[in-house]
């Protein structure tokens, strides 16, 4: 089956290091951390007291006040980022094109803050006081629902869930939707907002989070010997992607091309990666096959790299197993060292980082990399951004449950 070409025409980001793509990218280039002490609730009894939050986000800047009140924070992030992406794309959804424009925006966890809030109401005040908006605010598909309502996008609409691979799976699934002809344009990506008492407690109990509370900005340190877990982040990363001829016909600026998507399942463990990152390797290989590329052609990998002991090693081993000799000189960085781990939104903002690296010829660094773990043997672009002309960039995302998703973007000669 001959597949149609798919290009990126709009990007929107709400992140702990900046709201809007230019602010986000400026922070990545300059190695700025978005990790800070949690102020939104009392963290006295928690071993982890830090997160990559977005204290400056004001939903009223993007959404009518009444509508904003009916949205969980993750949906507010998604709507704000989608507006930015649609503004950049300049895509007007007329009655004629509406059925050909779809939305795929996933969330790893969904409206947890709403759930916690309403559960408290249930326990303290009884079932008759639970809000009629509780369910439609909480369910994880609602970013896709609300964005489609806002823009009148009547095409394919769903919301993949694959934990921390959600953002990449959403973009990859949307890309395939266009490639096989089911849509001409898709608004896609991921959104997450789980810096909440319950989520923090759960991740703490799972021993997944960094406890470097005294140095928040130094806490997320992928591949560094002294790393001690990931830092939870929040936000949204949304792309507008379109079929090539559809974008050209309306004179849209093409930011990059989506050329490869691969996915796999570890079939191994709830939270641990398969030994030697075997599942991650299968996703990377599948993406390379889809893109008809050899590993040597990849000029930059935006790694999953969450700053956990096992995960960083497994992904590095997976890169070595696929890239062989090329692994030694292929630059790899984890922008989570700056943004924290946005869970279901990670793949969204990291796709944007990959596209910006292609466009600007600048590879964002892995900050806080003072002493490399001897088991992590790749070139991680330590601490300082690097100039490099790159033709193809890969972005990896892996999730609890053993979901692995890899995207490949190509530079366009615009």
């Amino acid at each position, binding site marked *: 089956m001959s597949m149609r070409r798919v290009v990126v025409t709009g990007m929107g980001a709400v992140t702990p290091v900046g709201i809007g793509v230019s602010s986000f990218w400026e922070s990545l280039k300059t190695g700025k951390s978005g990790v800070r002490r949690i102020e939104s609730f009392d963290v006295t009894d928690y071993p982890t007291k830090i997160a990559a939050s977005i204290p400056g986000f004001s939903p009223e800047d993007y959404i009518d*006040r*009444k*509508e904003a*009140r009916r949205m969980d924070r993750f949906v507010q992030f998604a709507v704000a980022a989608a507006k930015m992406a649609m503004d950049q794309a300049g895509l007007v959804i007329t009655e004629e094109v509406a059925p050909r424009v779809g939305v795929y925006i996933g969330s790893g966890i969904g409206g947890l803050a709403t759930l916690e809030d309403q559960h408290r109401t249930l326990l303290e005040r009884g079932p*008759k*006081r639970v809000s009629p908006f509780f369910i439609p605010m909480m369910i994880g598909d609602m970013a896709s629902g609300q964005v489609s309502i806002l823009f009148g996008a009547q095409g394919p609409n769903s919301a993949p869930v694959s934990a921390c691979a959600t953002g990449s799976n959403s973009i990859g699934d949307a890309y395939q939707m266009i490639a096989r002809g089911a849509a001409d344009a898709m608004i896609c990506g991921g959104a997450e907002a789980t810096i909440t008492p319950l989520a923090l407690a759960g991740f703490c109990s799972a021993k997944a989070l960094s406890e470097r509370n005294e140095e928040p900005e130094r806490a997320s340190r992928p591949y560094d010997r002294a790393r001690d877990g990931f830092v939870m982040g929040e936000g949204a990363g949304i792309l507008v992607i379109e079929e090539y001829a559809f974008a050209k016909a309306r004179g849209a600026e093409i930011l990059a091309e989506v050329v490869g998507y691969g996915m796999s399942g570890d079939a191994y463990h709830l939270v641990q990666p398969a030994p030697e990152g075997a599942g991650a390797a299968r996703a990377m290989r599948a993406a390379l096959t889809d893109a008809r590329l050899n590993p040597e052609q990849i000029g930059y990998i935006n790694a999953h790299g969450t700053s956990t002991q096992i995960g960083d090693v497994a992904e590095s081993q997976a890169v070595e197993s696929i890239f062989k000799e090329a692994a030694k000189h292929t630059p790899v960085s984890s922008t989570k060292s700056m943004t924290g781990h946005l869970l279901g939104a990670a793949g969204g903002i990291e796709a944007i980082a990959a596209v910006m690296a292609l466009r600007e010829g600048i590879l964002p660094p892995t900050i806080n990399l003072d002493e490399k773990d001897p088991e992590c043997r790749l070139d991680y672009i330590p601490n300082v951004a690097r100039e490099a002309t790159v033709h193809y960039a890969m972005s990896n995302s892996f999730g609890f449950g053993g979901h692995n998703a890899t995207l490949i973007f190509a530079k366009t000669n615009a």
Partner: protein
Amino acid sequence: MSDVFERVKRIVVDRLGVEESQVALNASFKDDLGADSLDVVELVMELEDEFDLEISDEDAEKITTVGDVVQYIQSRE
């Protein structure tokens, strides 16, 4: 009367995101103030809290305008 109306008005403005001037006694929640079925359920809950009373589903169904609410609350006070 004016006190009840003012309190109802404040809740309606806050919940439905409308201008105070729109909240007239003859304004219909659905037709004039843009409320959907979920808004109405939430509004009834807010009114129950504000005026410390219970509004049955049967009574709630009869409320269609701001004036209906004011009248209902006064009849219960």
